[in-house]
């Protein structure tokens, strides 16, 4: 080992030197004891590399120790510090302050949405965890003969649930879920992405039951496709895509009785028949003829404005036979393939 020249230790040169900047942050406060909310604005000196979380720490250490928020890993893996920055949910530890300071912009930090606020930026995550619990979030091999070693899984099959496996349960997707805002009972993007993580797992044998439950009330067909979840997710999980995959899997299993599934089926059937959507079939086939009759006054309003196309001569695309042939080809191809990935018991593998 090469000798060290500087045997006497004081501070390493440059160890604590940092270029700093002055940042102003507006914070939504909530005091649970008085039940009152307000905005406070703080100006702090922080390193140029500081994140929103670092700015909050500087506020707590030097301006106001009563400011409350959650934090832990500060490297976007623990999921503690989800909050809204200028209205959009994000991990505070992943958002750099520098761009705001350079733009002369004062950010506003507030708690995540769709969850009750406990204090300042801290929300009550209990409803979030309840929904995770509701999707039976653990592997169920249905008492399959447990092997002495690992299940064998094709690497391509583990890739099917790669994105969903990245989820850190931070709640940023749920914060802005438009459907959950209107239906607080909606399972929501995080729980549904977690559900797909098991539906798509080659070892899980509870797929049918999972899909049956998920395709019912407050499940996958509640999603309004606002795509806020994909936009906000700090880990690239793309929960909306997971929900779409659950839809496709439940179609494979024949769970198509939910109005949402029926709605989708009208689109599929319409393109097969004539290339385009048949709007007039959408209402009765989605909500059923009885409910459609109840909605007749509504239909008449639409008809008066010319919004009800003639059901007897639907709009048809040219050369739609191509699409019909395509449909048949793909259905045949799908039939020849296993419905989903399956793990193999090591005892069943012939070692070559």
């Amino acid at each position, binding site marked *: 080992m090469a000798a060290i020249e500087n045997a006497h230790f004081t501070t390493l040169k440059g160890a604590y030197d940092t270029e700093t900047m002055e940042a102003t942050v507006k914070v939504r406060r909530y005091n649970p004891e008085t039940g009152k909310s307000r905005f406070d604005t703080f100006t702090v000196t922080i390193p140029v590399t500081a994140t929103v979380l670092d700015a909050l720490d500087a506020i707590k250490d030097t301006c106001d120790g009563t400011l409350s928020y959650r934090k832990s890993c500060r490297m976007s893996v623990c999921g503690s510090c989800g909050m809204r920055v200028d209205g959009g949910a994000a991990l505070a530890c992943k958002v750099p302050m520098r761009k705001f300071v350079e733009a002369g912009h004062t950010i506003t930090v507030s708690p995540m949405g769709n969850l009750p606020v406990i204090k300042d930026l801290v929300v009550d995550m209990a409803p979030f965890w309840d929904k995770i619990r509701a999707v039976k979030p653990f*592997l169920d091999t249905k008492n399959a003969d447990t092997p002495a070693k690992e299940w064998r899984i094709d690497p391509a099959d583990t890739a099917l649930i790669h994105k969903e496996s990245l989820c850190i349960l931070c709640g940023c997707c749920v914060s802005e879920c438009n459907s959950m805002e209107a239906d607080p009972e909606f399972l929501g993007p995080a729980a549904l992405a977690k559900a797909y993580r098991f539906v798509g797992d080659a070892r899980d044998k509870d797929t049918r039951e999972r899909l049956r439950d998920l395709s019912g009330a407050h499940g996958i067909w509640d999603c309004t496709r606002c795509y806020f979840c994909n936009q906000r997710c700090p880990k690239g999980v793309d929960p909306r895509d997971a929900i779409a995959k659950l839809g496709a899997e439940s179609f494979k299993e024949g769970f198509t009785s939910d109005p949402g599934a029926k709605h989708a089926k009208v689109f599929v059937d319409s393109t097969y028949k004539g290339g385009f959507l048949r709007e007039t079939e959408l209402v009765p086939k989605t909500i059923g003829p009885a409910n459609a009759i109840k909605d007749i006054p509504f239909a008449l309003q639409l008809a008066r404005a010319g919004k009800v196309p003639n059901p007897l001569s639907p709009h048809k695309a040219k050369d739609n036979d191509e699409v019909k042939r395509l449909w048949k080809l793909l259905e045949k191809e799908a039939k020849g393939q296993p419905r989903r990935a399956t793990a193999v018991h090591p005892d069943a593998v012939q070692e070559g």
Partner: protein
Amino acid sequence: MIRHDVIVLGAGLAGMRAAIEAKRAGVDVAIISKLHPTRSHSGAAEGGINAALGNATEDSPESHAYDTVKGSDYLGDQDAIEVMCREAPDDIYELEHMGAIFTRASDGKLAQRPFGAAGAPRTVYSADITGHVLIHVLYEQLIKYDIKVYEEFFATKVVVDEGRCAGVIAWDTQKGGLHAIEANHVILATGGVGRMYYGTTNAFACTGDGMSLAWNAGVPLKDMEFMQFHPTTLKSNGVLITEGCRGEGGYLRNKDGERFMVHDAPNAMELASRDVVSRAEWREIADGRGVDGCVMLDLTHLGWKKLKSRLPGSRELAMDYAGVDPIEQPIPVRPGAHYQMGGVDCDIWGETMVPGLWAAGEVACVSVHGANRLGGNSLMETIVFGRRAGQAAAERVFEQGDTGARIEPAALADEDRRIAAILNNSEGERPGVLREELAKTMYDKAGVYRTGEALLECQEKVHDLRERAKTLSLDDHSSVFNTDLTTALELLSLLECADCLVTSAVARKESRGAHSRLDFTTRNDDQWLKHSLNWNDGGEVRLDYRPVTITKHQPLARSY
């Protein structure tokens, strides 16, 4: 009064694994954790988990044990190491059966990657997010087994009644208020203490709470002077940049652009072991060849394709937290405190000297890591020894029934007065001020390189800080989600652990593993092949020693 058979403190990998095992055994177990389980720092582990499965090449638990003993610089207890290495494969298979999403080889088996100082590719992994995958699979099992979690409860005291563990007193952070939670068995699984250092890879939560609880309950802390430093951490916030960057061909350069590892490890170069690289970096910086207190991790020659495909996570961290895109610029890095090899003294079932008080994971010192931990062994330790502690505590419940240990109302009242005094105080200094002074002192004077003189200065400073911390000024005197209070409590834990660390470091006049002294540069087995024990003697640290357990491998010079 709340009462359970077994209480687990902490909900990282070791804690959850312990609770699952106890629950399976049929006892009433609950977890108390200051964080929601998936927020635990185990989730930040990147590289992998070691077990001699032999999936890639031939391997054996004996070979794993040998590598671990040698890596520990012979300070690891060989009986404990043998247990871990023997039981590791079945624990891995069980994690796989629970649903862990490990990376697979083309034959569908678990893939295994080579790691530093390992004789075979032994590290099972999930890309570069192994800890994340494991923390989530164990959380899934907590739900499956319906295990009660006192979430965001901060344990302030382990109560000992007539020499036996009686339970825990904990502060409910969400609602406020102290609760006595009785249990004849308490398993400490609260993780590490990296936050006593300024540069650290550890989360804010890693404040040595469990070490402090055990120390105050009369259990010694063992081998605390051995803090592992990771060579590539970011200056801005200490975030770890994986060894994979050097594995992919990254260079370490000083301010003159020189690849300085040529002086220290001309063959292995940047891929020499962690302690060797950390020491070389420290020397470069101390001798004035650093750049703003850092050396440069240069990946620019790897090309953007490789960086984007193989090291996307590291690139993102560098861009987020150092403001540099490694495709174009080198990343400033320096050594940062990473892992505490020492901890709560316990046996190979995790039991401490206080009957009913157990420990597992980083909080514990069994000891399997000795003076230096191998990459991939910490995750394995959490699973093996977490399971064993859960199993052993449950067995004890069945054997003994109720031991009769109780938390007397007076004990709760005393603790209530202590916490209230901290909560209501507005005199003195802010916790953040003291925390920063401590962290800088430790980083400067009890870091990668140590000298007797610097360590004594450090010790004096720690004593001064412990004195000043007797009155901490809080801004927040409210009860709901008062993080000013928990920050103050964490500071007290950090200070006690720092005192233990520096006291045993002053005494250990040799260089072994992570404890590298410029005034005693060689390992001295005649005098120092022994564990340091730090006892709590009226609040002061009292030192004591115990021999190392050697079964098969006599100490040899450690060279790679």
